[in-house]
């Protein structure tokens, strides 16, 4: 009983630690006073201002558009690459996979300065395009790492069976292989999107010409004091994600009420996605 109580309070404290800053952010998005730490009364005007602020809206726009485009491109390139790598001979496979790990294992700052060096060396103007290229570059490896295990689980005979039944290779791929690896592709796309919208370090080095995302905006504001509008924006984004996750959780729970094992498995998939993301998300 005592043990249970200790465990409860311990996890309670850890969660307080995890959520205190988030709570503070949310509370201060309703704060009349502009200076942080002082409560000046409740207001919604930061939320109203938010939709009129050019700088923040553009940061939001760039964050989202870079996120969507890099997720789509890296998912396509990465999926094809994974299939290609899977069919390579041992040596080639090993080489490509090791190179593929470089952006995953390298500190983000190294990837960032290396890409910046490249763009400047070849006289690329830093801006939207370089930012996008950088994001696609660090997203593809994760897509490949999400799709490859699904290919490895695939029954080798599956595509062969389809071709045996008269399917041409591409048809067999589209109708038989692709549906089987779709969960991996979705996972990869989700990871790519998450990594992209949350990235700061690589974006910091590879952008220019006034193109900034939310992270960069926050960073540049941090010393002077972050505009509470940013708090408002994050609160909106956080709430959206929270609702989305709760909805997914609710649906998985409801669908599989009768089948405990299956449910567990599905949960692991969802969590696995997040777990993978975690392994490199936020690395600064």
């Amino acid at each position, binding site marked *: 009983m005592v043990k249970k109580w200790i465990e409860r309070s311990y996890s309670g404290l850890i969660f307080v630690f995890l959520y205190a800053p988030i709570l503070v952010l949310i509370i201060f998005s309703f704060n009349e006073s502009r200076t942080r730490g002082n409560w000046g009364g409740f207001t919604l005007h930061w939320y109203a201002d938010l939709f009129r602020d050019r700088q923040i809206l553009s940061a939001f726009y760039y964050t989202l558009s870079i996120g969507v485009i890099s997720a789509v491109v890296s998912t396509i390139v990465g999926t094809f*690459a994974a299939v290609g790598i899977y069919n390579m001979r041992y040596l080639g496979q090993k080489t490509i996979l090791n190179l593929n790990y470089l952006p995953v294992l390298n*500190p983000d700052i190294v990837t960032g300065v290396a*890409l910046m060096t490249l763009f400047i060396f070849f006289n690329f103007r830093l801006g939207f395009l370089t930012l996008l290229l950088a994001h696609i570059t660090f997203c593809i490896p994760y897509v490949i790492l999400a799709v490859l295990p699904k290919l490895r689980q695939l029954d080798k005979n599956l595509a062969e069976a389809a071709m045996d039944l008269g399917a041409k290779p591409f048809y067999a791929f589209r109708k038989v292989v692709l549906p089987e690896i779709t969960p991996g592709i979705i996972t990869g796309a989700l990871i790519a999107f998450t990594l992209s919208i949350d990235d700061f370090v690589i974006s910091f080095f590879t952008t220019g010409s006034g193109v900034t995302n939310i992270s960069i905006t926050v960073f540049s504001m*941090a010393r002077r004091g972050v505009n509470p509008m940013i708090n408002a924006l994050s609160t909106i984004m956080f709430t959206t994600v929270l609702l989305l996750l709760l909805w997914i959780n609710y649906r998985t729970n409801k669908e599989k009420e009768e089948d405990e094992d299956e449910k567990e498995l599905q949960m692991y998939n969802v969590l696995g996605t997040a777990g993978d993301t975690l392994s490199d998300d936020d690395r600064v």
Partner: protein
Amino acid sequence: MKSRMAYPYIVWLSMFIVLPLLLILYYGLTAVDGSFTLDNFQRFIDPIYLRVLWRSVELALLSTAICLVLGYPMAMIIAKTEIKRRNLMVLLFILPMWMNFLLRTYAWMTLLGRNGVINNILGWAGLPELNLLYNASAVVLGMVYNFLPFMVLPIYTVLSKMDQSYIEAAKDLGANNRKVFWKVIFPLSLPGVISGVTMVFMPAVSTFVIPRLLGGGQLMLIGNLVEQQFSYVGDWNFGSAISIVMMLFILISMALMTRFDKEQQGGVGLW
């Protein structure tokens, strides 16, 4: 034949992953005039810079240790909870990640600052104001806060997959709960601990945002040094050299960790 599908990526990989690193290598090994030199690396052996490197490693190790001490019991608690609540708890660990990383760190400034929430509370209670922000402790706090989930989740995964019969067998052979933990559970969870340690240590040692925000720029870590060379000083050659050192340091420690892991497990990878 299907291996051709990887060709576009191979081109991409060479252009945007291999080539930039080669460029960094080139800059690191040349002087401003383009002639070959090892000066950039020699410059780094200066005590000032070595101290920066040492401080980064020190703070990262400290944060990793704190994460391990805080995170292991947490992982155990989650692994023990029944399945429905367990998933919720894991979700609660992942959720903060969806709030922008910089904002979360910035929020600590609001909490810790001179006029921050904590000092306000202390003020009400009639206690003296504390200097919480802009020091090494604040940086360590920021690292622990941001990277704690990276420690908890892999350990949790290993623990939740652990075969209960090992624990039962140990008890059967006379081990009490403490001995079961130290002789069976902990050794078997080492793969999770190792990935947790790597996943916390690597980003912690190379971060430049956390020291910048919470250390207030007083505290220079190796990440800040690199950033400074590229953003302000414009000394790409020296910056590249430091990047190479950092990269090698991390890749080598990674390799050592995985090797240790494999030896521990007798070649059976669990993670």
